[in-house]
C-alpha cells in the first residue's frame, strides 16, 4: 500500500530495487504525490525516464497502471468516455414491446453497460485501490483538452450529463509528463507538484546502464557513457537521452564488442544519433581528428 513508505529515503531504496535510479529530490516529490494526492508534473528533455517512472511506481504500489497518450486533436470522447451508440440503438429495438415506461427505457439506455470507459474515466472508477494514472506528453494535446483536465485533477470527478457526476472512490495517483514543446497553462501547473528531470551526470548514468545491463563490462561502460556525455555537450539536432545510451550499450554487447573502437563506433552510431545531419557531422569530425 501507498502508506507503507514513511519517508523519501525508503522510496529511493524501493525504486532502486525496481531498476530505477532516482535522487532523493525526485523521491520527495513522489512521496508528496502519495501523501498529498496531488498530481505530479514531470518535465525534462526526451529520454530521461519521465514516462518510465509510472509503471515502476505502479509496480511498487502493486496497483494498476492506466495510461493516456496525448496527441494533437485528442478529445473527450477518446480520453474520458463515449456512449456505445450502436449498442444503444439495438437496445432500443430490443425494448420495443417490452412495456417499459419511457423513463425506465432511458435509464436503461444510459446505464453503465452502454458506456465505453476511456482511460480517464477508468482511473476514477477503480474499485479496490487507487491506480496510477499516466498522462503522457501532455504538451502534445490542445489547450482545450488541458482545460478539461482541470476538473479531473483538482476534484477527481467527471461529469457525464446523462448520468451525473462520478466521483473517485479511490483517488488515482496522477503523473503527467511534458517535453516542454509548449508551455502548459498556469492553471494546470498550479494544481500539480513539479519535478524537472535533467540528463544524468556521469556516475548516475553509469549506474542506470548497469541496472539495465548487469552483464556489461566496466571498461566498455565507462567508454560508452563518457562518449554520450561528450555528445550531449554539443549542439545536435537531437540530443541523445538515457534510453539511447542503453540501446547503444545493448547493441554493442549484442555485436560482441568489448571496447568502443572506431569500427564499432561507426557501425552503431545510429543507435545514439537519430538524425542524418548529426551522424554525418560527428563522423566527419572524427575523421578529421584521425587525419
Amino acid at each position, binding site marked *: 500500500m501507498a502508506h507503507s513508505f514513511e519517508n523519501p529515503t525508503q522510496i529511493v531504496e524501493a525504486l532502486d530495487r525496481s531498476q530505477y535510479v532516482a535522487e532523493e529530490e525526485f523521491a520527495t516529490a513522489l512521496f508528496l504525490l502519495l501523501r498529498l494526492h496531488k498530481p505530479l508534473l514531470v518535465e525534462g528533455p526526451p529520454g530521461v525516464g519521465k514516462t518510465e517512472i509510472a509503471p515502476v511506481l505502479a509496480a511498487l504500489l502493486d496497483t494498476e497502471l492506466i495510461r493516456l497518450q496525448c496527441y494533437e486533436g485528442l478529445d473527450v470522447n477518446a480520453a474520458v468516455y463515449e456512449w456505445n451508440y450502436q449498442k444503444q440503438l439495438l437496445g432500443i429495438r430490443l425494448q420495443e414491446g417490452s412495456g417499459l415506461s419511457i423513463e425506465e427505457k432511458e435509464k436503461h439506455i444510459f446505464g453503465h453497460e452502454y458506456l465505453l470507459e476511456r482511460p480517464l474515466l477508468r482511473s476514477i472508477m477503480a474499485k479496490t485501490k487507487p491506480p496510477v494514472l499516466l498522462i503522457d506528453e501532455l504538451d502534445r494535446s490542445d489547450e482545450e483538452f488541458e482545460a478539461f483536465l482541470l476538473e479531473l485533477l483538482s476534484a477527481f470527478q467527471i461529469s457525464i450529463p446523462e448520468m451525473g457526476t462520478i466521483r473517485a472512490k479511490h483517488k488515482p495517483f496522477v503523473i503527467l509528463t511534458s517535453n516542454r514543446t509548449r*508551455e502548459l497553462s*498556469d492553471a494546470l*501547473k*498550479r494544481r500539480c*507538484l513539479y519535478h524537472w528531470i535533467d540528463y544524468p551526470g556521469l556516475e548516475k548514468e553509469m549506474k542506470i546502464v548497469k541496472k539495465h545491463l548487469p552483464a556489461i563490462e566496466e571498461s566498455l561502460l565507462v567508454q560508452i557513457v563518457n562518449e554520450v556525455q561528450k555528445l550531449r555537450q554539443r549542439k545536435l539536432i537531437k540530443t541523445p537521452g538515457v534510453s539511447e545510451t542503453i540501446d547503444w550499450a545493448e547493441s554493442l554487447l549484442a555485436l560482441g564488442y568489448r571496447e568502443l573502437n572506431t569500427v564499432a563506433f561507426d557501425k552503431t552510431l545510429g543507435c545514439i544519433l537519430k538524425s542524418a545531419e548529426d551522424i554525418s557531422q560527428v563522423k566527419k569530425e572524427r575523421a578529421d581528428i584521425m587525419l
Partner: protein
Amino acid sequence: MIKILEMIKQQAFAARSLTESIVAFTEFARSHGMNIGVQETRDALSSAACGLLANRDQFRSALQAIFCHSPQEIRLFEKLFHLYWDTNPIDLHETRSQTSVSGKMEKRTNASLVMLGMANTDNKKEDAKDITGASDEERLKKTDFSKLGTMETGILAEIALKLFHQMALRLRRRMKDNLLGGQINLRRTIRRSIGYGGEPIDLLRKTQRPKKTRLIVLLDVSGSMDKYSYFLLLFICALREHFRQLEAFVFSTVLIRISKALSHGRVDQVLSIISDQADNWSGGTRIGSSLQQFNEKYGREMLNGSPTIIILSDGLDTGSPELLSIELKKMKRRSKRIIWLNPLKGSRGYKPTAGGMQAALPELDEFMSANNLQCLIELENILADA
C-alpha cells in the same frame, strides 16, 4: 522534535511556531515573484506534517516540488530558500531588490539582445520596475519597435508571445468550425445506415476538403531592419503554429532557408542558427537578387498550389529596382497573393518613394505597416481567410 527546535533557534526568528515560519517563508517567496497561493501554503504545511521536516534536504525538495512550476522557478527558489533559511533575517531587507532584479534578467537571452542591436547597452537596474498596468501594456503595443528601451523590449517580447499565441489559437479554431459545417449527404448516409438496420446513425456530410493554404515568409534581416527583426521573427514563429505548411526565409544579400530551424525549436535557437550562418548579417540589402535566388532555387517546388507570400522588409534596396519588379512579377503569377509588410510605413510622413519600394508596389496585393504589435495582430484578419 529536538532537531526541529534547534532549527527554529538557529533562525533566530521572531516567529513563534514552525507553522508561522513556513507561512512567513511562503510570503517571502511570493514577494520575490514566485507564484504561490493559499493552496501551496497549505500543501507546504501538510508536507511538514508528513514528517519531512527532520531532514533539511527533503524539506527543501518538498517545498520545491510544491512551489515551482518551471526550471526558471526552480533556480529562483534555490536562491530564496538559501537566503531565507540560512541567513540572518535582519539582512533580508537589503538584499531584497537585488534578487528580484537578477531573477528577471535571467529570462532574457543574449541572442535576442544581439539581434536587437542592444548587446552593448547598459542595463540600469533602477529601470527594472515591472510594467503590468493595462494602460502601459496598451502603450507598449502601439510603440514603434525601434523606439523601445532594453527593459521594455523584454516586457514587450513577453506580451508579444502571449498575443501571438492567442492569435494562432483563434486562427486554428476558425478552421475547426469550418470543418463541422456542410450539408448532409443523404445518399451516403442511407447507404451507411443499412448496416445498422436502417437507422441513420452516422450522418455523413458534404464538405469541401479544407484547403491547406501554404504560407511563404521572407524576412529582411539587413542592418536597417535590425530593431524589427526580432519581433518579426517571433511573429513568424507564431504563424507557424497555425500554418503547418510554412516556409520561412531570411535574406539580406543572400537567401537562407530557416523553415527547418523553426520547426525544431524556439526563437532564440533560430536566432543563433541564423547568426551562425549569415556572414554578412546586417549588411546592405539586395532584395531583387534575393527574390531571384528564391525563384531559382525554391520556386519550382514551393510556388505551386497558390501559396500566400509575405515579405517583411523596409524596401531600402541597394540592388536594381528593375530586377525586383521582374522577380515579383514571377512570384505573383504563381501565388495567391503577395503581402508586403513595411515597418517604415507606420512612421509619420513616410512615402514609399525608395527605389525598391516604388518598383514593388504595383505587384502587391497588400501593403501594410509592421512597426508595432498592434499592426502585426491586425494581420490576423487578412490571414484568417488566406
